[in-house]
């Protein structure tokens, strides 16, 4: 087992452990913090995949900005956590394992063929800023503009949703 393999198992298992803790934590703040920790481990996996730029973005945007927004809303709402965190309905408890089983059944053929999909090591992609962003600003320029529009629409939407209701 090489150092690379050991790091993969460490980051991967820590990430999944954080996912489980997000699922079963009673406290929403604890869930959000475990999710931040999980995103840090996910950034570690990105580093192992030599996706340097995405690892940075994962920490800056996801763990930094998005999860802080979550924590901010938890603070703002000041709700009481329900006594049990899970649904009481049978449909969920039957449906969730079924959905997961269906997902795994769909994934298994891909996993079996994955070794054949991988290219030779000298053709592997290195996710430097230049390598990732050059296609974004050349071939995928139109999607970038559309994304900018969506972000603008989201900003306006949040402002409208966050307004105090005025009696007509």
């Amino acid at each position, binding site marked *: 087992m090489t150092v690379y393999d050991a790091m993969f198992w460490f980051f991967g298992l820590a990430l999944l452990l954080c996912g489980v803790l997000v699922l079963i934590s009673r406290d929403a703040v604890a869930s959000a913090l475990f999710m931040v920790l999980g995103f840090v481990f996910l950034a570690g996996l990105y580093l192992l995949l030599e996706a340097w730029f995405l690892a940075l973005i994962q920490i800056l945007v996801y763990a930094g900005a998005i999860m802080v927004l979550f924590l901010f809303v938890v603070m703002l*709402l000041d709700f009481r956590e329900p006594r049990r965190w899970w*649904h009481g309905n049978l449909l969920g408890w039957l449906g969730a394992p079924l959905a997961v089983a269906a997902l*795994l059944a769909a994934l298994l053929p891909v996993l079996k063929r994955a070794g054949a999909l991988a290219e030779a090591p000298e053709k592997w992609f290195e996710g430097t800023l230049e390598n*990732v962003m050059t296609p974004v600003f050349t071939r995928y320029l139109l999607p970038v503009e559309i994304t900018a529009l969506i972000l603008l629409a989201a900003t306006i939407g949040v402002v409208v949703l966050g307004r105090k209701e005025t009696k007509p």
Partner: protein
Amino acid sequence: MMHVGLEHYLAVSGALFALGLACIVLRRNALLVFMGLELNLNAANLALVAFSRYGGHAEGQVLATFIIAIAAAEVAIGLAIIVALFRRRATIVTDLLRSLKG
């Protein structure tokens, strides 16, 4: 033990997606349902980055970048909806919000 390759990353991604799905289906708190959605997005991102790395093309990581940008917009809107819901109904426990159920 096998050498770590594409299939290992895909397995982690699948497991993370399953956890996010369980979070969406089982949790009662609307905020946690939303966090499950984020887990799903990140599982998809991990699969995309792994495919991009081992397949030797940039598109996967380009798409992952877009997903992160859209996720930021989606989180802002979703949390605004949850805050508006809490203001109006004073709860975010999903099985208490059933006025649409006939």
